[in-house]
Each structure stands twice: as C-alpha cells, then as structure tokens.
C-alpha cells in the first residue's frame, strides 16, 4: 500500500524579552538553579501575574509578518495539570481566543514553493526544568531536582495546519519559521538553549484516503536534524504498525537521539483533561489598531520587501538579494556596509559580500553576525577600489589577508596596502618608463601588433602588469600603451 504522511507542527519560540511574561525576573540563560525564580515564578501563596508588554509586542510583530489577524481581544486561560516543574499546577496560556489567528509561512523545497497555513500563535509561559541526576530525597529515595529559572519565560506557540507531507517539508518549514522569528528579532533562535523547540504531530494514511490517521505528538525536538530523524522514524513505525495489523494510539512521544527512535511518554498519559478556563487573575488582552500600526511602523523590513527595494533602488540581481536576505545578520551587515560606502557602491558591496565574504563565512561555517571582520573594514576595501588605490584583484588579496589574520584594526586595509606595497601605480611617468622597457624587450609582439594581430596587445598588457606586480592601474596602462603604439 502507498502511504501519505501528514504532519502538523507546534513550535515554541522563546520571546526575546528582558523579563518573564508575568513577573519581573530575568530570563537570562545559564543562571544557577532557582536564582532567577521569583515569588511569582515559584507560585508562592498570594502572588499574582502581570503581563509583560514586550511579549505582546513580539506576538503582534510575528502576526504582522505572517499576514495573520491580530485579535483585538484575546484571553489568557489556565491549563490545569500537576507536574513538579509547573509551580502553580496550571500553565497560563491562551486557549479559545489566541492573539494571532491564521497566517502563512512560505517555504521552498527543491526549488518548489509551498505555503504552510498557520492555525494560530498564542502567548504562554514556559515551565521549569526537572533534573534527573538521581538526587537522594529526605528518605533516601531516588529524586529529581526542580529548577524553576525557566518557569515563566515568555513563549509564542506557533501552530500550523496539518499541511506538511514529508519530514523534509517539516524541516523546510521549521527552518523558514526559525529564520523569520530571528529576522524579526522576536526570538534569538538558539536551539541548543531551547529557545526554539518543535513538536511534530505525525500521522499516516493510505494515499487517496480523506480522513486523517491517528496522530502522535513528538515533543521537544531541538534541532533540525532530530526533527527530520524523529519524523522519519515515527512514519516508519506507524506504517509498520498498521501493516502488521496494529493500530496507532494517540499519544505523546519523546525522541531519543542516541537510539534514533521515539518512545511513549508515560507521564503525560493521564493528564488529558486540562480543565481550561479563563484566568480570573488576568483581564482580556486588548490590542488597539494604533498599537498594531505602531509595531508595524517600527518593524524591521521583511526579507521579501528588502529584496524588492534593493533590486529597484540599486539594481542588484534577484540572486544577490536572495543571498543577502537569507539571514537577518547578513542583511544587517550589508546595510551597515552600504551606509558607509554610499549607494553608488551598492553593487560593489553586494559583489564583495556574495563573493569573497560569503565563501569565507561558508568555509568556517559561521554567520555574518560572527564575522571576524566588520562592515567598516569592508567599506574601506571598497573605497580603496573606488578611489583607484587598488585593483579588484589586489582587493581580493587584501581581503584574504585581513580575514586570515582576523584583523581588528579599523584601518586594516590601508595598513596591509602599505605593508605589502600594494598601492596601484598611477604615476604616468613611472608607468611610461616601465612600458618603454617592456616594449624594448618585446619587439616581436610590437611587430605582430602592427601587423594587425590584436592578441599581441593583450600579451603586452600582461607583460606590463607582470612587471608592476599587478599594481599598475589597468585603465591607465591601456591608454598609455595605445598611445605609445600609435605614436611610433
């Protein structure tokens, strides 16, 4: 039988705020256990939540970026269940009326474009962490340690329709979403630290069947590779199960990257009646048209908008724009560079970034944000080409030198030109002397040129450049040589 895979994704993006969603505790990663868990996060008797404005602003921006409806009124609800990393015994989330409704994310897989429909995105608080290092409790019993530093960290849970049909599509979606939330600045995207976590709802059905099969939810996939492997495993597991006459049971599963398999999470099984109801400690979240407009006006330009603008304003190619807008850091780098070299050099700047710069980053597997060189250093390089100090060819040499030494001085370009004597020779007198020497030593070529062999001209140019170690100004050499050959 032929099977069709159906995947829906739920992604938890940790929002980039200073403080927690309902308390004034810091969300900085890596603090000692429970040092960033305040009275509200610990659910001490008598505490109450107050909503962080920045978390809402991030949700609005995300909603605008995916073309969703921003709910003018949304409601926080309590999701009730017991778990030691959930101090209140309920999670504050949004249930019936979420803040972001609908929306679309565009993905490209093997050159084919596809749209993934979003169901919703809602604000909620994160839980703490259980550490399973086999601590000993008061009676010597095997125990887990609870660290509530993460409790109350703001999350945006982004939910898709079951629109994806393969693990590869799910990964393409996750990557597109990741790049978008990082681009928008709403999430730092750090998957190792858990800032961007994916849950995949996976089911299979015979091709042609309308109804969905029973789905399993694979939780907490914190890398694109695990996401892909987990889905692939789960699809195989479900197909084999059905083909062997079994039945898929709806459940939550965990991916074990060491064994490369998913397994049932027993602990979540009986917590299936969450008794959602509106949180009486919080009032309806009201978002005015004015607020939405304000966020829109302050929002960073989206990749597609940038690309369009650069093409029309600077005449960049679609390809260059695609490379430059792949990541926010790259685009920011380019814009910074542009600011320093001016519009006239937009194309030259783009060439440098998509050429030498991109391949250097690639080689080291780092992003523009981690580049050892900064935009001012590259700006100087472009300026030196523009003012005729160096040729394009020499520029490449300088770039490599700068990169290799991880130059940190702002005048690295000038320093290297000076040190290596790479300054272009534009002094006509000096050039003429060199040309005379070359002509004298290459009479054969001169004669061939006069006999009408155009190729001989290029050979002479080559000799002259060689004699100047490539430092001669090519345009000038061209002109002087032409003059000389025509004179005599």
């Amino acid at each position, binding site marked *: 039988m032929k099977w069709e895979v159906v995947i829906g994704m739920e992604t938890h993006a940790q929002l980039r705020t200073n403080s927690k969603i309902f308390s004034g*505790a810091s969300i900085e990663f890596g603090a000692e256990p429970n*040092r960033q868990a305040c009275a509200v996060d610990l659910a001490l008797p008598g505490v109450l939540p107050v909503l962080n404005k920045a978390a809402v602003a991030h949700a609005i921006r995300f909603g605008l970026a995916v073309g969703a409806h921003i709910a003018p009124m949304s409601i926080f609800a309590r999701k009730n269940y017991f778990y030691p990393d959930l101090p209140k015994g309920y999670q504050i989330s949004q249930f019936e009326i979420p803040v972001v409704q609908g929306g679309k994310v565009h993905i490209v897989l093997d050159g084919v474009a596809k749209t993934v429909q979003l169901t919703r995105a809602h604000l909620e608080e994160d839980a703490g962490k259980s550490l*399973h290092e086999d601590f000993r409790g008061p009676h010597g019993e095997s125990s*887990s340690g609870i660290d509530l530093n993460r409790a109350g960290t703001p999350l945006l849970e982004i939910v898709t329709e079951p629109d994806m049909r393969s693990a590869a599509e799910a990964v393409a979606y996750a990557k597109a979403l990741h790049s978008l939330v990082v681009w928008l600045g709403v999430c730092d995207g750090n998957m190792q630290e858990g800032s961007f976590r994916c849950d995949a709802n996976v089911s299979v059905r015979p091709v042609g069947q309308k109804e969905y099969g029973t789905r399993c939810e694979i939780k907490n996939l914190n890398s694109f590779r695990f996401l892909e492997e987990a889905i692939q495993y789960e699809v195989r597991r479900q197909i084999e199960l059905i083909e062997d006459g079994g039945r898929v049971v709806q459940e939550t599963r965990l991916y074990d990257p060491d064994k490369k398999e998913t397994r049932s999470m027993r602990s979540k099984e009986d917590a299936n009646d969450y008794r959602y109801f509106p949180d009486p400690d919080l009032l309806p979240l009201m978002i005015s048209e004015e607020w939405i407009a304000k966020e829109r006006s302050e929002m960073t330009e989206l990749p597609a908008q940038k690309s369009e603008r650069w093409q029309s304003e600077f005449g960049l190619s679609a390809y260059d724009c695609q490379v430059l807008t792949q990541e926010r850091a790259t685009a920011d780098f380019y814009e910074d560079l542009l600011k320093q070299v001016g519009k006239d050099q937009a194309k030259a700047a783009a060439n440098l970034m998509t050429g030498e710069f991109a391949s250097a980053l690639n080689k080291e597997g780092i992003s523009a944000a981690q580049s050892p060189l900064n935009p001012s250093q590259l700006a100087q390089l472009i300026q030196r080409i523009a003012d005729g100090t160096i040729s394009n060819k020499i520029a490449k040499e300088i770039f490599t030198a700068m990169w290799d030494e991880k130059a940190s001085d702002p005048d690295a370009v000038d320093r290297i030109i000076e040190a290596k004597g790479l300054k272009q020779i534009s002094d006509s007198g000096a050039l003429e002397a060199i040309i005379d020497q070359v002509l004298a030593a290459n009479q054969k070529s001169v004669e061939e040129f006069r006999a009408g062999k155009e190729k001989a001209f290029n050979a002479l140019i080559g000799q002259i450049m060689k004699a100047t170690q490539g430092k001669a100004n090519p345009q000038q050499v061209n002109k002087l040589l032409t003059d000389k050959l025509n004179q005599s």
Partner: protein
Amino acid sequence: MNLEDVKRIAHLSHLSLSEDEAKATLAQLQKVFHLVEQMQAVNTDGIEPLAHPIEQIMAIAQPLREDMVTEHDQRDAYLKNAPAEHDGLFLVPKVIE
C-alpha cells in the same frame, strides 16, 4: 454523578480517596449538584458569560508591565520553606518521562 466520576475528579485533583471516602463524597456532591441543577431552568440564550464583575459597568483591559527586570535573587529566603532541597534545587520523588 456516579462513583467513577468521584474517583476521576479526585485523581484530576490529586487527592486520594478510600472506597468509603469516595462513597461518602459521592453522597455529598450529589446533594450539591442537586442544588446546582436549578441553574438549568434559567434561559441564558444570548447572554455573554461574565468572567470579571467590573466588566458589567466599564471597559476593562489587561494592564501591561514594562519589560524590566525588577526581581532579584532571593533563593535562600525562598528555599527556607522547601520540604526537601539540595544545592538550590527543590527535590521531588523521581520524575519519569
């Protein structure tokens, strides 16, 4: 409401009930729900639920906090009330995932 319901909600509430307690609770809750059933006689068509009393007379909106860190480490004070702790962690019987 039956005995199974009582056991289900006791479990949802993480309360343990012996068989006898469950039976006694059922009898009491049945009385309460007999009272509660009076509500069903009221026609509430087209009436919006009232979650916050003040909403009845004025527009209300969730106040928003500026995104600032205002709370600082008080772990030692907080841990004083902990039934079991180790190295700054609250201890619980092993969590099985």
